[in-house]
Protein backbone atom coordinates (compact mmCIF):
# COMPACT_ATOMS: atom_id res chain seq x y z
CA UNK A 1 0.00 0.00 0.00
CA UNK A 2 1.16 3.50 -0.68
CA UNK A 3 1.69 6.06 2.04
CA UNK A 4 -1.34 7.91 0.82
CA UNK A 5 -3.50 4.85 1.19
CA UNK A 6 -2.26 4.24 4.73
CA UNK A 7 -3.04 7.83 5.69
CA UNK A 8 -6.51 7.65 4.21
CA UNK A 9 -7.17 4.30 5.90
CA UNK A 10 -5.99 5.67 9.24
CA UNK A 11 -8.26 8.70 8.87
CA UNK A 12 -11.25 6.55 8.01
CA UNK A 13 -10.61 4.26 10.98
CA UNK A 14 -10.41 7.28 13.29
CA UNK A 15 -13.66 8.62 11.86
CA UNK A 16 -15.43 5.29 12.16
CA UNK A 17 -14.22 4.37 15.65
CA UNK A 18 -14.70 7.80 17.18
CA UNK A 19 -17.93 8.50 15.32
CA UNK A 20 -19.72 5.38 16.51
CA UNK A 21 -18.41 5.47 20.08
CA UNK A 22 -18.82 9.21 20.52
CA UNK A 23 -22.41 9.26 19.30
CA UNK A 24 -23.44 7.37 22.45
CA UNK A 25 -21.82 10.11 24.53
CA UNK A 26 -23.79 12.72 22.64
CA UNK A 27 -27.03 10.91 23.42
CA UNK A 28 -26.08 10.69 27.07
CA UNK A 29 -25.38 14.44 27.10
CA UNK A 30 -21.83 13.66 28.16
CA UNK A 31 -19.89 15.37 25.41
CA UNK A 32 -17.77 17.23 27.94
CA UNK A 33 -16.44 13.98 29.36
CA UNK A 34 -14.96 13.24 25.92
CA UNK A 35 -13.00 16.44 26.19
CA UNK A 36 -11.85 15.46 29.66
CA UNK A 37 -10.85 11.92 28.77
CA UNK A 38 -9.07 12.96 25.60
CA UNK A 39 -6.76 15.02 27.77
CA UNK A 40 -6.35 12.74 30.77
CA UNK A 41 -5.39 9.69 28.69
CA UNK A 42 -2.10 11.51 28.20
CA UNK A 43 -1.42 10.55 31.80
CA UNK A 44 -2.24 6.95 30.95
CA UNK A 45 0.22 6.94 28.09
CA UNK A 46 2.96 8.46 30.19
CA UNK A 47 2.12 6.09 33.02
CA UNK A 48 2.37 3.12 30.67
CA UNK A 49 5.76 4.39 29.56
CA UNK A 50 6.99 4.63 33.16
CA UNK A 51 5.97 1.07 33.81
CA UNK A 52 7.14 -0.58 30.59
CA UNK A 53 9.83 1.88 29.43
CA UNK A 54 8.48 1.72 25.92
CA UNK A 55 5.79 3.25 23.80
CA UNK A 56 4.20 -0.04 22.99
CA UNK A 57 0.59 -0.24 21.80
CA UNK A 58 -0.96 -2.64 24.28
CA UNK A 59 0.34 -1.10 27.55
CA UNK A 60 -0.65 2.28 26.16
CA UNK A 61 -4.21 1.09 25.57
CA UNK A 62 -4.36 -0.39 29.07
CA UNK A 63 -2.95 2.78 30.63
CA UNK A 64 -5.45 4.88 28.76
CA UNK A 65 -8.32 2.61 29.72
CA UNK A 66 -7.36 2.81 33.39
CA UNK A 67 -6.98 6.58 33.39
CA UNK A 68 -10.20 7.00 31.44
CA UNK A 69 -12.10 5.03 34.06
CA UNK A 70 -10.34 6.96 36.84
CA UNK A 71 -11.37 10.22 35.19
CA UNK A 72 -14.99 9.15 35.12
CA UNK A 73 -14.74 7.82 38.68
CA UNK A 74 -13.23 11.05 40.07
CA UNK A 75 -15.81 13.15 38.25
CA UNK A 76 -18.54 10.97 39.73
CA UNK A 77 -17.07 11.23 43.23
CA UNK A 78 -16.74 15.01 43.14
CA UNK A 79 -20.22 15.34 41.67
CA UNK A 80 -21.86 13.13 44.27
CA UNK A 81 -20.19 15.09 47.04
CA UNK A 82 -21.92 18.22 45.85
CA UNK A 83 -19.69 19.77 43.15
CA UNK A 84 -21.52 20.83 39.97
CA UNK A 85 -20.90 18.25 37.27
CA UNK A 86 -19.27 20.63 34.77
CA UNK A 87 -16.98 21.98 37.48
CA UNK A 88 -16.17 18.42 38.53
CA UNK A 89 -15.16 17.58 34.96
CA UNK A 90 -13.07 20.75 34.75
CA UNK A 91 -11.23 20.03 37.99
CA UNK A 92 -10.46 16.39 37.25
CA UNK A 93 -9.38 16.84 33.69
CA UNK A 94 -7.09 19.79 34.23
CA UNK A 95 -5.35 18.20 37.21
CA UNK A 96 -4.82 14.80 35.60
CA UNK A 97 -3.71 16.40 32.35
CA UNK A 98 -1.30 18.69 34.20
CA UNK A 99 0.14 15.68 35.98
CA UNK A 100 0.65 14.05 32.59
CA UNK A 101 2.41 17.13 31.26
CA UNK A 102 4.73 17.26 34.27
CA UNK A 103 5.59 13.59 33.92
CA UNK A 104 6.27 13.98 30.21
CA UNK A 105 8.91 16.59 30.90
CA UNK A 106 10.73 14.02 33.06
CA UNK A 107 11.01 11.55 30.23
CA UNK A 108 11.15 14.03 27.38
CA UNK A 109 14.79 13.31 26.59
CA UNK A 110 14.35 9.54 26.50
CA UNK A 111 11.55 9.38 24.06
CA UNK A 112 9.77 11.33 21.40
CA UNK A 113 6.57 12.19 23.20
CA UNK A 114 6.14 15.92 23.28
CA UNK A 115 3.07 17.83 24.28
CA UNK A 116 2.71 19.47 20.90
CA UNK A 117 2.55 16.07 19.24
CA UNK A 118 0.12 14.69 21.80
CA UNK A 119 -2.22 17.64 21.40
CA UNK A 120 -2.15 18.00 17.64
CA UNK A 121 -1.08 14.59 16.36
CA UNK A 122 0.41 14.14 12.90
CA UNK A 123 -1.31 11.73 10.65
CA UNK A 124 1.28 12.29 7.91
CA UNK A 125 3.88 10.50 10.07
CA UNK A 126 1.68 7.50 10.74
CA UNK A 127 2.83 5.34 7.77
CA UNK A 128 6.46 5.47 8.94
CA UNK A 129 5.80 4.06 12.38
CA UNK A 130 5.22 0.48 11.36
CA UNK A 131 4.75 -2.72 13.20
CA UNK A 132 7.66 -4.94 12.34
CA UNK A 133 8.26 -8.43 13.59
CA UNK A 134 11.58 -10.09 12.75
CA UNK A 135 12.30 -7.36 10.27
CA UNK A 136 9.07 -7.86 8.35
CA UNK A 137 6.83 -4.81 8.28
CA UNK A 138 3.12 -5.32 8.77
CA UNK A 139 1.86 -1.80 8.22
CA UNK A 140 1.50 1.20 10.54
CA UNK A 141 1.02 0.60 14.27
CA UNK A 142 -1.74 3.22 14.32
CA UNK A 143 -3.79 1.18 11.85
CA UNK A 144 -3.40 -1.95 13.97
CA UNK A 145 -4.39 -0.13 17.13
CA UNK A 146 -7.35 1.58 15.52
CA UNK A 147 -8.47 -1.66 13.95
CA UNK A 148 -8.25 -3.50 17.26
CA UNK A 149 -10.13 -0.80 19.14
CA UNK A 150 -12.78 -0.60 16.43
CA UNK A 151 -13.40 -4.33 16.69
CA UNK A 152 -13.46 -4.23 20.51
CA UNK A 153 -15.90 -1.31 20.53
CA UNK A 154 -18.20 -2.76 17.90
CA UNK A 155 -18.23 -6.06 19.73
CA UNK A 156 -19.08 -4.42 23.05
CA UNK A 157 -21.77 -2.24 21.49
CA UNK A 158 -23.31 -5.27 19.81
CA UNK A 159 -23.22 -7.35 22.98
CA UNK A 160 -24.61 -4.61 25.21
CA UNK A 161 -26.78 -2.87 22.62
CA UNK A 162 -30.00 -3.24 24.59
CA UNK A 163 -28.37 -2.25 27.87
CA UNK A 164 -26.68 0.81 26.39
CA UNK A 165 -29.92 1.93 24.82
CA UNK A 166 -32.00 1.46 27.96
CA UNK A 167 -29.58 3.02 30.39
CA UNK A 168 -29.20 6.01 28.09
CA UNK A 169 -32.91 6.58 27.62
CA UNK A 170 -34.09 6.03 31.19
CA UNK A 171 -31.34 5.20 33.65
CA UNK A 172 -33.62 4.89 36.67
CA UNK A 173 -36.02 2.47 35.07
CA UNK A 174 -33.07 0.54 33.71
CA UNK A 175 -31.51 0.32 37.17
CA UNK A 176 -34.79 -0.88 38.63
CA UNK A 177 -35.25 -3.70 36.18
CA UNK A 178 -31.71 -4.91 36.62
CA UNK A 179 -29.75 -3.40 33.74
CA UNK A 180 -26.13 -3.01 34.95
CA UNK A 181 -26.25 0.76 34.47
CA UNK A 182 -23.06 1.59 36.35
CA UNK A 183 -21.12 -1.07 34.52
CA UNK A 184 -22.38 0.28 31.19
CA UNK A 185 -21.27 3.77 32.17
CA UNK A 186 -17.71 2.69 32.85
CA UNK A 187 -17.68 0.41 29.86
CA UNK A 188 -18.48 3.41 27.74
CA UNK A 189 -15.76 5.46 29.41
CA UNK A 190 -13.31 2.68 28.61
CA UNK A 191 -14.41 2.60 25.00
CA UNK A 192 -13.96 6.36 24.70
CA UNK A 193 -10.50 6.14 26.27
CA UNK A 194 -9.42 3.38 23.91
CA UNK A 195 -10.70 5.29 20.89
CA UNK A 196 -8.86 8.37 22.04
CA UNK A 197 -5.53 6.65 22.53
CA UNK A 198 -5.77 4.81 19.25
CA UNK A 199 -6.47 8.10 17.50
CA UNK A 200 -3.81 10.05 19.36
CA UNK A 201 -0.94 9.65 16.92
CA UNK A 202 -3.04 10.69 14.00
CA UNK A 203 -5.25 13.53 15.17
CA UNK A 204 -4.11 14.38 18.70
CA UNK A 205 -6.02 15.06 21.88
CA UNK A 206 -7.84 18.18 20.81
CA UNK A 207 -9.10 17.17 17.40
CA UNK A 208 -10.14 13.73 18.58
CA UNK A 209 -12.91 15.48 20.50
CA UNK A 210 -14.28 16.78 17.21
CA UNK A 211 -14.18 13.27 15.78
CA UNK A 212 -15.95 11.89 18.86
CA UNK A 213 -18.69 14.46 19.23
CA UNK A 214 -19.52 16.12 15.95
CA UNK A 215 -20.48 13.05 13.85
CA UNK A 216 -22.89 11.96 16.60
CA UNK A 217 -24.35 15.43 16.92
CA UNK A 218 -24.82 15.54 13.15
CA UNK A 219 -26.45 12.12 12.96
CA UNK A 220 -28.77 13.15 15.78
CA UNK A 221 -30.20 15.80 13.47
CA UNK A 222 -30.80 13.29 10.71
CA UNK A 223 -32.45 10.25 12.26
CA UNK A 224 -34.93 9.17 14.90
CA UNK A 225 -33.60 5.64 15.28
CA UNK A 226 -30.87 4.59 17.69
CA UNK A 227 -29.28 1.95 15.49
CA UNK A 228 -29.31 4.20 12.44
CA UNK A 229 -27.79 6.97 14.52
CA UNK A 230 -24.87 4.72 15.45
CA UNK A 231 -24.29 3.66 11.85
CA UNK A 232 -24.76 7.13 10.45
CA UNK A 233 -22.27 8.56 12.96
CA UNK A 234 -19.66 6.12 11.72
CA UNK A 235 -20.42 6.97 8.10
CA UNK A 236 -20.20 10.69 8.81
CA UNK A 237 -16.87 10.12 10.57
CA UNK A 238 -15.50 8.33 7.52
CA UNK A 239 -16.84 10.92 5.08
CA UNK A 240 -15.29 13.68 7.20
CA UNK A 241 -11.95 11.91 7.07
CA UNK A 242 -12.11 11.57 3.28
CA UNK A 243 -13.28 15.14 2.76
CA UNK A 244 -10.63 16.40 5.15
CA UNK A 245 -7.89 14.48 3.43
CA UNK A 246 -8.89 15.73 0.01
CA UNK A 247 -9.07 19.32 1.24
CA UNK A 248 -5.72 19.11 3.03
CA UNK A 249 -3.96 17.76 -0.02
CA UNK A 250 -5.57 20.24 -2.37
CA UNK A 251 -4.66 23.26 -0.29
CA UNK A 252 -1.58 21.87 1.43
CA UNK A 253 -2.85 22.33 4.98
CA UNK A 254 -2.98 20.15 8.12
CA UNK A 255 -4.71 16.84 7.43
CA UNK A 256 -6.05 16.29 10.94
CA UNK A 257 -7.20 19.89 11.12
CA UNK A 258 -9.04 19.56 7.83
CA UNK A 259 -10.75 16.40 9.00
CA UNK A 260 -12.05 18.16 12.08
CA UNK A 261 -13.18 21.10 9.97
CA UNK A 262 -14.97 18.65 7.68
CA UNK A 263 -16.98 17.29 10.63
CA UNK A 264 -17.98 20.87 11.37
CA UNK A 265 -19.00 21.51 7.76
CA UNK A 266 -21.13 18.35 7.67
CA UNK A 267 -22.75 19.36 10.94
CA UNK A 268 -23.57 22.78 9.55
CA UNK A 269 -25.11 21.27 6.44
CA UNK A 270 -27.27 18.96 8.56
CA UNK A 271 -28.13 21.80 10.91
CA UNK A 272 -29.39 23.90 8.04
CA UNK A 273 -30.88 21.32 5.70
CA UNK A 274 -31.86 18.25 7.71
CA UNK A 275 -35.35 17.23 6.56
CA UNK A 276 -36.40 16.67 10.17
CA UNK A 277 -34.64 19.26 12.27
CA UNK A 278 -32.95 21.55 9.74
CA UNK A 279 -33.33 25.26 10.39
CA UNK A 280 -33.89 26.28 6.78
CA UNK A 281 -36.35 23.59 5.80
CA UNK A 282 -38.29 24.22 8.99
CA UNK A 283 -38.55 27.93 8.21
CA UNK A 284 -39.50 27.14 4.65
CA UNK A 285 -42.16 24.71 5.76
CA UNK A 286 -43.56 27.22 8.23
CA UNK A 287 -43.74 29.78 5.49
CA UNK A 288 -45.65 27.43 3.20
CA UNK A 289 -48.04 26.65 6.01
CA UNK A 290 -48.55 30.36 6.64
CA UNK A 291 -49.26 30.96 2.98
CA UNK A 292 -51.69 28.11 2.90
CA UNK A 293 -53.45 29.47 5.93
CA UNK A 294 -53.54 32.97 4.49
CA UNK A 295 -54.96 31.82 1.21
CA UNK A 296 -57.49 29.63 2.95
Amino acid sequence: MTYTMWIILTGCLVGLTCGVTGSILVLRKMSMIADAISHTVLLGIVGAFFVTQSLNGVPMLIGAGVVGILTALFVEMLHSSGVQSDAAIGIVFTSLFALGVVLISFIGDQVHLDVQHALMGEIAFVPWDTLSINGVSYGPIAVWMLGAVLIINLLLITLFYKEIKMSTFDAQFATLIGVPVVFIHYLLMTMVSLSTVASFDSVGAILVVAMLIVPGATAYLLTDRFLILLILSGVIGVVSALMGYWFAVSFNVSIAGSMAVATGVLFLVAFLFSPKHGVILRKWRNKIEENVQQSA
Partner: protein
Amino acid sequence: MYALSVKDISVTYDKQLALEDVSFAVPEGSITGIIGPNGAGKSTLIKSILQLLPTLSGNVEVFHKPIKSQKKIIGYVPQRSEVDWDFPTNALDVVLMGRYNHIGLFKRANKKEVTWAKTCLEKVGMQDYATRQISQLSGGQQQRVFLARAMAQDAKVYFMDEPFAGVDASTEKAIIQLMKEWKAEGKTVLVVHHDLQTVNDYFDHVLLLNKSPIAYGETQTVFTLDNLEQAYGGKIAFLQKAPATVKEST
Protein backbone atom coordinates in the same frame (compact mmCIF):
# COMPACT_ATOMS: atom_id res chain seq x y z
CA MET B 1 -50.33 -10.53 53.27
CA TYR B 2 -48.56 -7.24 52.84
CA ALA B 3 -47.36 -6.51 49.33
CA LEU B 4 -45.12 -3.76 50.63
CA SER B 5 -43.87 -2.83 54.03
CA VAL B 6 -41.72 0.21 54.59
CA LYS B 7 -39.97 0.73 57.92
CA ASP B 8 -38.42 3.97 59.14
CA ILE B 9 -37.13 5.33 55.86
CA SER B 10 -35.18 8.56 56.11
CA VAL B 11 -33.53 10.31 53.18
CA THR B 12 -31.28 13.36 52.99
CA TYR B 13 -30.19 15.49 50.05
CA ASP B 14 -26.98 17.36 50.81
CA LYS B 15 -27.54 16.90 54.54
CA GLN B 16 -31.07 18.30 54.26
CA LEU B 17 -33.67 15.91 55.48
CA ALA B 18 -36.22 15.18 52.74
CA LEU B 19 -37.94 12.24 54.40
CA GLU B 20 -38.09 11.39 58.08
CA ASP B 21 -39.06 8.04 59.54
CA VAL B 22 -41.62 6.96 57.02
CA SER B 23 -43.28 3.64 57.84
CA PHE B 24 -46.34 2.03 56.35
CA ALA B 25 -47.55 -1.30 55.04
CA VAL B 26 -49.73 -1.88 52.00
CA PRO B 27 -51.97 -4.94 51.73
CA GLU B 28 -51.91 -7.00 48.56
CA GLY B 29 -54.46 -6.11 45.90
CA SER B 30 -55.09 -2.52 46.95
CA ILE B 31 -54.66 0.91 45.42
CA THR B 32 -52.86 3.42 47.61
CA GLY B 33 -52.64 7.15 47.00
CA ILE B 34 -49.57 9.06 48.16
CA ILE B 35 -50.65 12.61 48.76
CA GLY B 36 -48.92 15.76 49.89
CA PRO B 37 -47.87 19.24 48.77
CA ASN B 38 -45.09 19.94 46.26
CA GLY B 39 -41.76 19.09 47.78
CA ALA B 40 -43.32 16.83 50.39
CA GLY B 41 -41.00 14.03 49.32
CA LYS B 42 -43.43 11.85 47.37
CA SER B 43 -41.10 11.17 44.47
CA THR B 44 -38.24 10.80 46.91
CA LEU B 45 -40.22 8.20 48.82
CA ILE B 46 -40.90 6.12 45.71
CA LYS B 47 -37.31 6.34 44.55
CA SER B 48 -35.94 5.40 47.94
CA ILE B 49 -38.33 2.47 48.18
CA LEU B 50 -37.09 1.33 44.78
CA GLN B 51 -33.48 1.89 45.87
CA LEU B 52 -32.86 4.43 43.18
CA LEU B 53 -31.64 6.78 45.91
CA PRO B 54 -29.36 6.08 48.85
CA THR B 55 -31.30 6.07 52.11
CA LEU B 56 -30.04 7.19 55.48
CA SER B 57 -31.89 4.44 57.24
CA GLY B 58 -34.84 2.14 56.94
CA ASN B 59 -35.74 -1.04 55.17
CA VAL B 60 -38.26 -2.13 52.58
CA GLU B 61 -39.85 -5.51 52.10
CA VAL B 62 -41.97 -6.75 49.25
CA PHE B 63 -44.08 -9.77 50.11
CA HIS B 64 -42.02 -10.10 53.29
CA LYS B 65 -38.73 -10.40 51.48
CA PRO B 66 -36.06 -7.71 51.03
CA ILE B 67 -36.91 -5.63 47.99
CA LYS B 68 -33.50 -6.34 46.51
CA SER B 69 -34.54 -9.87 45.71
CA GLN B 70 -37.97 -8.86 44.47
CA LYS B 71 -37.21 -6.37 41.72
CA LYS B 72 -38.56 -8.63 39.02
CA ILE B 73 -42.10 -8.19 40.31
CA ILE B 74 -41.95 -4.41 40.59
CA GLY B 75 -43.32 -2.09 37.96
CA TYR B 76 -42.54 1.60 37.78
CA VAL B 77 -44.07 4.54 35.96
CA PRO B 78 -41.75 7.50 36.57
CA GLN B 79 -42.75 11.15 36.45
CA ARG B 80 -42.88 11.95 32.74
CA SER B 81 -40.39 14.79 33.04
CA GLU B 82 -37.66 12.42 34.14
CA VAL B 83 -36.64 10.87 30.85
CA ASP B 84 -35.17 12.26 27.66
CA TRP B 85 -38.06 12.27 25.20
CA ASP B 86 -35.73 13.41 22.41
CA PHE B 87 -33.96 10.07 22.56
CA PRO B 88 -34.05 8.48 19.09
CA THR B 89 -36.48 5.64 19.60
CA ASN B 90 -40.13 4.83 19.02
CA ALA B 91 -43.08 3.91 21.22
CA LEU B 92 -42.86 0.17 20.62
CA ASP B 93 -39.17 0.15 21.60
CA VAL B 94 -39.95 1.90 24.87
CA VAL B 95 -42.62 -0.66 25.69
CA LEU B 96 -40.23 -3.49 24.83
CA MET B 97 -37.87 -2.13 27.49
CA GLY B 98 -40.44 -3.35 30.00
CA ARG B 99 -39.78 -6.90 28.78
CA TYR B 100 -36.06 -6.74 29.58
CA ASN B 101 -36.22 -9.30 32.34
CA HIS B 102 -37.95 -11.72 30.04
CA ILE B 103 -35.57 -11.19 27.15
CA GLY B 104 -32.31 -11.41 29.05
CA LEU B 105 -28.74 -10.27 28.57
CA PHE B 106 -27.21 -10.41 25.07
CA LYS B 107 -30.48 -11.43 23.43
CA ARG B 108 -32.78 -9.58 21.09
CA ALA B 109 -36.51 -9.43 21.58
CA ASN B 110 -38.17 -12.30 19.76
CA LYS B 111 -41.52 -12.29 18.02
CA LYS B 112 -43.39 -13.31 21.13
CA GLU B 113 -42.02 -10.37 23.10
CA VAL B 114 -42.82 -7.96 20.30
CA THR B 115 -46.36 -9.27 20.11
CA TRP B 116 -46.67 -8.87 23.86
CA ALA B 117 -45.46 -5.28 23.66
CA LYS B 118 -47.89 -4.54 20.84
CA THR B 119 -50.76 -5.93 22.90
CA CYS B 120 -49.80 -3.60 25.73
CA LEU B 121 -49.80 -0.63 23.36
CA GLU B 122 -53.19 -1.70 22.12
CA LYS B 123 -54.57 -1.87 25.65
CA VAL B 124 -53.73 1.79 26.19
CA GLY B 125 -55.11 2.71 22.77
CA MET B 126 -51.73 3.46 21.22
CA GLN B 127 -51.47 0.71 18.62
CA ASP B 128 -51.42 3.23 15.77
CA TYR B 129 -48.41 5.00 17.24
CA ALA B 130 -46.08 2.02 17.62
CA THR B 131 -43.47 3.32 15.21
CA ARG B 132 -43.86 6.99 16.09
CA GLN B 133 -40.74 8.75 17.40
CA ILE B 134 -41.41 9.42 21.09
CA SER B 135 -40.79 13.17 20.96
CA GLN B 136 -43.61 13.41 18.44
CA LEU B 137 -46.16 12.11 20.93
CA SER B 138 -48.33 14.41 23.02
CA GLY B 139 -47.91 14.46 26.79
CA GLY B 140 -50.90 12.20 27.31
CA GLN B 141 -49.69 9.78 24.65
CA GLN B 142 -46.26 9.65 26.27
CA GLN B 143 -47.93 8.82 29.55
CA ARG B 144 -49.84 6.00 27.84
CA VAL B 145 -46.59 4.63 26.45
CA PHE B 146 -45.15 4.62 29.97
CA LEU B 147 -48.23 2.75 31.16
CA ALA B 148 -47.86 0.22 28.38
CA ARG B 149 -44.23 -0.26 29.37
CA ALA B 150 -45.25 -0.88 32.98
CA MET B 151 -47.92 -3.29 31.77
CA ALA B 152 -45.32 -5.10 29.69
CA GLN B 153 -43.33 -5.67 32.86
CA ASP B 154 -46.14 -7.88 34.12
CA ALA B 155 -45.26 -6.93 37.68
CA LYS B 156 -47.11 -7.58 40.93
CA VAL B 157 -46.50 -4.26 42.66
CA TYR B 158 -46.73 -1.04 40.68
CA PHE B 159 -45.42 2.41 41.56
CA MET B 160 -46.72 5.36 39.58
CA ASP B 161 -45.44 8.90 40.03
CA GLU B 162 -48.12 11.41 39.04
CA PRO B 163 -49.53 9.45 36.12
CA PHE B 164 -52.34 11.97 35.78
CA ALA B 165 -50.18 15.07 35.46
CA GLY B 166 -51.01 16.96 32.29
CA VAL B 167 -53.28 14.33 30.73
CA ASP B 168 -56.82 14.90 29.49
CA ALA B 169 -59.96 13.40 31.00
CA SER B 170 -60.07 10.42 28.65
CA THR B 171 -56.47 9.46 29.34
CA GLU B 172 -57.10 9.83 33.06
CA LYS B 173 -60.05 7.49 32.71
CA ALA B 174 -57.96 4.99 30.78
CA ILE B 175 -55.30 5.04 33.49
CA ILE B 176 -57.85 4.56 36.24
CA GLN B 177 -59.46 1.71 34.39
CA LEU B 178 -56.10 0.04 34.01
CA MET B 179 -55.34 0.48 37.71
CA LYS B 180 -58.65 -1.11 38.60
CA GLU B 181 -57.96 -4.01 36.25
CA TRP B 182 -54.64 -4.52 37.92
CA LYS B 183 -56.32 -4.49 41.28
CA ALA B 184 -58.84 -7.06 40.08
CA GLU B 185 -55.93 -9.27 39.06
CA GLY B 186 -54.63 -9.04 42.61
CA LYS B 187 -51.89 -6.55 41.82
CA THR B 188 -50.95 -3.79 44.21
CA VAL B 189 -50.70 -0.20 43.05
CA LEU B 190 -49.17 2.88 44.67
CA VAL B 191 -49.87 6.21 43.03
CA VAL B 192 -48.53 9.69 43.71
CA HIS B 193 -51.51 11.94 43.24
CA HIS B 194 -52.32 15.64 43.40
CA ASP B 195 -56.01 16.12 42.73
CA LEU B 196 -57.74 16.02 46.09
CA GLN B 197 -61.18 15.94 44.45
CA THR B 198 -60.74 12.41 43.15
CA VAL B 199 -58.99 10.81 46.11
CA ASN B 200 -62.13 9.18 47.43
CA ASP B 201 -62.98 7.62 44.10
CA TYR B 202 -59.57 6.30 43.24
CA PHE B 203 -57.90 4.95 46.35
CA ASP B 204 -58.50 2.30 48.98
CA HIS B 205 -55.70 3.63 51.15
CA VAL B 206 -54.10 7.00 51.50
CA LEU B 207 -50.68 8.05 52.75
CA LEU B 208 -50.63 11.74 53.63
CA LEU B 209 -47.05 12.86 53.51
CA ASN B 210 -45.13 15.97 54.34
CA LYS B 211 -41.55 14.97 55.01
CA SER B 212 -42.85 12.50 57.55
CA PRO B 213 -46.14 10.64 57.32
CA ILE B 214 -49.09 12.69 58.59
CA ALA B 215 -51.55 9.84 58.42
CA TYR B 216 -51.90 6.48 56.78
CA GLY B 217 -54.81 4.08 56.49
CA GLU B 218 -58.12 3.54 54.76
CA THR B 219 -59.20 6.50 52.71
CA GLN B 220 -62.36 7.16 54.69
CA THR B 221 -60.60 7.42 58.00
CA VAL B 222 -57.47 9.21 56.85
CA PHE B 223 -58.68 11.66 54.24
CA THR B 224 -60.13 14.21 56.64
CA LEU B 225 -59.95 17.96 56.71
CA ASP B 226 -57.88 17.91 59.87
CA ASN B 227 -55.25 15.67 58.38
CA LEU B 228 -55.23 17.62 55.13
CA GLU B 229 -54.68 20.88 56.95
CA GLN B 230 -51.83 19.31 58.81
CA ALA B 231 -50.26 17.97 55.61
CA TYR B 232 -50.73 21.13 53.59
CA GLY B 233 -50.17 23.55 56.44
CA GLY B 234 -53.67 24.96 55.99
CA LYS B 235 -52.24 27.57 53.65
CA ILE B 236 -53.49 26.47 50.32
CA ALA B 237 -56.58 28.13 48.93
CA PHE B 238 -57.91 25.13 47.00
CA LEU B 239 -58.29 23.32 50.27
CA GLN B 240 -61.44 25.38 50.74
CA LYS B 241 -63.02 23.29 48.04
CA ALA B 242 -61.84 19.97 49.36
CA PRO B 243 -63.94 19.75 52.55
CA ALA B 244 -67.13 19.21 50.56
CA THR B 245 -65.81 16.00 49.07
CA VAL B 246 -64.17 15.02 52.29
CA LYS B 247 -67.36 15.42 54.31
CA GLU B 248 -69.56 13.61 51.83
CA SER B 249 -67.64 10.45 52.33
CA THR B 250 -67.11 10.57 56.06
